[in-house]
């Protein structure tokens, strides 16, 4: 199912709220480790949107729901071995599972066929069926164009042309609002490596976006 609307990004969570969330996660996770079904349901309600967003950005709309379900089942299976190690520990751990699952899925797809991502000239899957990609009206400012549905689909299409690691950093930092330090722990690389990778990802994204805009006559 293709999302019909894109909500605006949430403001960054203050530190006190993050600590409160961590404390709540600690109780929920320990209850779920003991086999409490309600605790597991609460964790699903809290994180399934964010996990779906990461999966959608990295792997596209195809099989995003199945992959999200698979990520939560993997987390439930590995929950017994999970141990809290500081604040935002469970979220970091869950996001790490999500990113790794998406990277593995992209590698599996690449083994089948060459991943070039959807061509900018290909039809776009929407709720109304396949439609031609409309030429965005670039006469307006870019931040206003971002609210247009056609540009959102163009953004998704350009992200799909990036490498899996570039997709991961853009999905976590630019789209999910994760902080640099947490993103570095999720991906499992040093902070400097993360920043350089993010810079290259954004440059690649911007280069392709600008090329598309020039081709469309902006």
């Amino acid at each position, binding site marked *: 199912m293709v999302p019909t609307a894109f909500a605006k990004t949430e403001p960054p969570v203050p530190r006190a709220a993050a600590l409160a969330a961590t404390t709540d996660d600690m109780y929920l996770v320990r209850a779920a480790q003991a086999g409490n079904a309600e605790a597991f*349901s609460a964790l699903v309600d809290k994180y399934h949107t964010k996990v*779906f967003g990461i999966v959608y950005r990295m792997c596209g709309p195809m099989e995003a729901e199945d992959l999200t379900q698979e990520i939560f089942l993997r987390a439930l299976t590995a929950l017994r071995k999970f141990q809290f190690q500081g604040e935002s520990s469970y979220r970091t751990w869950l996001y790490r599972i999500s990113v790794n699952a998406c990277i593995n899925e992209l590698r599996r797809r690449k083994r089948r066929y060459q991943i070039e991502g959807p061509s900018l000239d290909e039809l776009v899957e929407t709720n109304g069926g396949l439609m031609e990609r409309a030429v965005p009206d670039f006469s307006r400012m870019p931040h206003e164009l971002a609210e247009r549905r056609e540009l959102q689909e163009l953004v998704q299409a350009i992200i799909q042309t990036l490498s899996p690691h570039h997709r991961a950093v853009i999905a976590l930092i630019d789209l*999910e609002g994760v902080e640099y330090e947490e993103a570095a722990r999720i991906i499992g690389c040093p902070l400097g490596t993360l920043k350089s990778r993010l810079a290259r990802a954004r440059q690649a994204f911007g280069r392709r976006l600008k090329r598309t805009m020039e081709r469309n006559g902006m």
Partner: protein
Amino acid sequence: MLPCEDVRQLVEEYVAETLPAARRQEVSRHLRACPGCQRMVEEARLARMVLHGAGQPKAPPGLAQVIKQAGLRRLRYRSRPLHERALGSPAFVAVCASLVCGAAICLLSILRVSGAHPTWETELPRITVVEQLEFPTRDTHRILFLPARPRLATLRRPLKVSVELAGVVPPRPATAEPAPRPPAPARLVRAHVAPSLVARTPRTLPTAHALPEPPLGLAHQRISTPGIVPVSISTGGLGQVNQPAPEEIEKLELLDLAAPQPAAGDVATSLTNYPAHR
């Protein structure tokens, strides 16, 4: 002025406006002189602007419920005892099937090796082949020795053959005088010999059987029956017997003394010192 490599590393912070003032002025001065870095900064700014305004995709409404149901099934399965979980698992069934097949293969192999098949013999039959390979001594007359007919102990499905050589005389030790051998019991040899080959001598045969006088008409005829080999047998004093030609030697049939007397018409010609069959 800053080099392009340094500016490339500071692009993100320059676009995010988090650089110190002095550093920012240096980057700005470089951008005024470098169109490549300027284009790079514009692309980074456009990407940041678009990505931050893209928003988050909305999850389908039934996704959370589907995930919860799958998780609850997993929790219920995990709460069952191990033996209940194992009984229905494919891995358990596969392990049991492989164990059963392995045990069956081992049992069949053991039964086959031990020969427990109902149609097979429990004991391997033995075949005893007795042959007399003793050659005549100097005391015996020159004869043509043919091997005795082997006597078989069993003939059923021989799987193992043991050859026992009986009557084989071991090599005599090097002594000055050979040990005297007891004379072998006499043995009747039935053979047909052409009368023309037998010379008449005044000495008679030491047996009760005497050569009948051949008819005059058959003096130069060869008397032999098919399958019977006329051999030249030394008469041991009876007289000289000429050696028959090889083509006249057909077959020699050996008989024991305890065997029934030869039928009428058969002529016992001589005795030979054959060792008796055992």
